[in-house]
């Protein structure tokens, strides 16, 4: 039996902002419907209306032609609509089956839980979709990809037929992505309908039947994927031609800023050696678990548990010397998780930018507010960060603008070495181009830059030199412009590596 849901003429305003404007959106069972748009285009608002999280101002929702009311998340659940969020809502201490049956546990005699029956039913579902996962494992032992599977299975087992996935691949390794896409194909053939929110064109054109693009609260394109192209979608998303980022040419002949020699941490990374010169961009790449973030931590003084040496400006660094010493010596770090350790949410944009080099604006023990304002205003302009004022609390900004602020705090002229972990994770195309431009400007100024990136196109676009890693060991090194994408991908995937 095919099912369909239609949202017709949906409108929603927040004060003066028209977040959704006469939006029509529908979904048919057995299909993947991709929903794309820049941050703030209205995708999340539309999905929150569908999920009963926020109320709409106008419009109607129909399931199979019959009008329904979705006033609360419970209503959406009853209609078979489930949302899978980027942050998982699983309880770490319970098992896979325990999580899936949470709140509607099966009982044997009276109050006692029938754990084996719950595990058996979960196993049955997992087998049905060809997934290999032990229902009795505690969730705390699972990786992101497996947790996501548990979330989806939980939705399916509570009779959901429409599943909304918000950026499902943002925290997944290549291997987990492949498994997720296979899972999605199986769900389609079982008549499940999926709304797939993503920025990744290859993913969308790989699995979706229909693609809808939102911009400024309106639908600007809704088309079968077979009848449109990646470029057309990108173009409608931004409204203009995508600002192409072209890597400028440069010669790298400066002094060595950072030198790493035979760096080893057993089980994490192994025999890593490289130099980074002034103005050079070195990119470490691999799959998740390749050890690159841990190498960055060792360099920044956050980890003392390694052997080998790290020299900076000709001097050997003391293991675990702490970030305060690193920043004092002109090192900077942009972390991979903005919200966890990148921003100070309740503080102003000004405080977020000025913090690392605050001491330089102190006169006689007192902070020179004017000097700070000058620096901050310049940083905001240089990074084209969109904020209403430097007094704005940073938590109200979009992901892309938050990330720009994480960069702009390191624009100080004394910065010599910058580490970037996944510099464009979870941000839209426009912000990405800005971030690439900032990185290039820093390197032209002579800053040595070490980047960890998992996105091969980004690696090739930014790097002067690339080192591929597989399970903590270096595979090979590439120098601009001799980047062979296919070879890099097989390095990362461990092709030809012993088992």
């Amino acid at each position, binding site marked *: 039996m095919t099912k369909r849901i239609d949202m017709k003429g949906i409108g929603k305003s927040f004060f003066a902002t028209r977040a959704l404007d006469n939006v029509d959106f529908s979904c048919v069972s057995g299909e993947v419907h991709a929903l794309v748009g820049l941050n703030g285009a209205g995708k999340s608002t539309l999905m929150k209306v569908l999920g009963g999280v926020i109320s709409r101002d106008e419009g109607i929702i129909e399931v199979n032609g019959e009008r329904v009311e979705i006033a609360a998340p419970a209503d959406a659940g009853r209609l078979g609509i489930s949302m899978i969020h980027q942050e998982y809502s699983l309880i770490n201490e319970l098992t896979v089956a325990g999580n899936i049956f949470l709140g509607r546990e099966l009982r044997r005699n009276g109050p006692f839980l029938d754990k084996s029956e719950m595990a058996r039913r979960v196993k049955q579902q997992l087998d049905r979709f060809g997934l290999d996962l032990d229902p009795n494992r505690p969730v705390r032992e699972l990786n992101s990809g497996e947790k996501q599977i548990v979330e989806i299975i939980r939705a399916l087992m509570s009779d959901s037929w429409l599943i909304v996935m918000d950026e499902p691949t943002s925290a997944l390794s290549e291997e987990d992505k492949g498994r997720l896409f296979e899972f999605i194909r199986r769900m389609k053939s079982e008549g499940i309908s999926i709304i797939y929110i993503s920025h990744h064109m290859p993913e969308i054109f790989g699995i979706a039947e229909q693609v809808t693009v939102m911009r400024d609260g309106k639908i600007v394109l809704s088309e079968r994927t077979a009848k449109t192209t990646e470029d057309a979608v990108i173009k409608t998303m931004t409204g203009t031609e995508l600002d192409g980022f072209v890597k400028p040419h440069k010669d790298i002949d400066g002094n060595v800023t950072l030198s790493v020699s035979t760096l080893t941490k057993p089980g994490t990374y192994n025999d890593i050696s490289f130099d980074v010169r002034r103005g050079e961009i070195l990119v470490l790449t691999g799959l998740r678990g390749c050890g690159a973030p841990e190498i960055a931590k060792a360099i920044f003084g956050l980890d003392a548990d390694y052997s080998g040496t790290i020299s900076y400006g000709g001097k050997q660094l003391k293991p675990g010397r702490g970030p305060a010493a690193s920043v004092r010596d002109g090192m900077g770090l942009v972390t991979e998780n903005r919200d966890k350790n990148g921003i100070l949410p309740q503080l102003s944009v000004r405080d977020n930018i000025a913090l690392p080099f*605050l001491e330089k604006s102190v006169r006689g023990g007192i902070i020179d507010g004017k000097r700070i304002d000058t620096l901050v205003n310049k940083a905001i302009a240089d990074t084209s960060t969109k904020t209403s004022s430097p007094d704005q609390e940073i938590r109200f900004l979009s992901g892309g603008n938050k990330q720009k602020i994480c960069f702009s705090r390191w624009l100080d002229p004394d910065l010599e070495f910058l580490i970037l972990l996944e510099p464009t994770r979870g941000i839209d195309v426009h912000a990405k181009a800005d971030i690439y431009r900032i990185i290039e400007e820093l390197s032209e100024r002579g800053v040595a830059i070490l980047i960890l990136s998992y996105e091969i196109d980004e690696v090739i676009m930014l790097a002067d030199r690339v080192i591929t890693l597989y399970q903590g060991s270096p595979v090979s090194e590439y120098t601009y412009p001799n980047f062979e994408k296919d070879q890099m991908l097989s390095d990362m995937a461990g092709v030809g590596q012993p088992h």
Partner: protein
Amino acid sequence: MSDAAVSPRRTFALDGLMLRYAVLVGLIVIASVGFSLANSNFYSITNVGILLRSISVLFLVSMGMTFIMLTGGIDLSVGSNVAFSGGVGVVALTTTGSATIGFICALLAGMAIGWVNGVFIGRLRLSAFMVTLATFALARGLALVIYDADSINVDNAAFLWLGGTSWNNLPVVIPFVALMFIALSVLLYRTTFGRNVYAAGSNFNTAFVLGRRPERSVVWIYVLSGALAGLSAIVTVGRVSSGQPWAGLFLEFDAITAVILGGTALSGGRGRLLGTILGVLLYGIIINGLVLTGTNPYLQSLIKGMILLGVVLLDTYTQRGKSV
């Protein structure tokens, strides 16, 4: 976001802060008028002086508590610390006869308790609630031992000056509190230390990665709170001309209530000293008014509890509304 959509937001943000203070000032006026109608003595110059002096200790302790709550912490030990550092100061005074040594010993004793709190909370990352609950008992125990559970009379004029002297109807402690407010405001808003307080409270991990040494800032913040408890001890001894082993009882409760009343976020990172000053004033006026209008003293604790619960409820709900 276009520039046109931008400016209203800024005024709105300012309104949030200003609104809070406007409401507090309004409530202060309403409470004063109400109590002065109920009791004609309320508005006499003498009573205003008495009122301000009676809450001078609460001003000092609450300002220290503001720094701590801005880091997302709490200091339950301040009341006990007032008794302990007062005991150390009074014993040092009576032994040596020197008011200066008495002052210094009281301050150092207060800072010592603060340092213990700070090291366990900042360096060893234990829960502020648990650590200061322990020192709450520990400092009170030390005070009882020092005093041998009995009060000690003090007649050294220099030692009693800060808490006991008045210029006409103005107790000297009032300008002293005002000076401390200015000094602590400069420290909080115009120095790197102050910025580090906000950074540690907003996101400890980020502050650490940016090289701000939040673990070190937190130690000094608790030492500051301890120093203010030491000062409060000197004021307390001056007010009653004796050192009391049960001084500062329930002071931590009053301070926490006043700070929250003043708009400092329970989660840290947001709040200002001005709010705390207004919070202490409003809270002090209500408590003082209840005494003057002859309200059953047993009811006072009930009313204090209701105020705290009400403010926390209000803040939590308005905050939840904003974050959606």
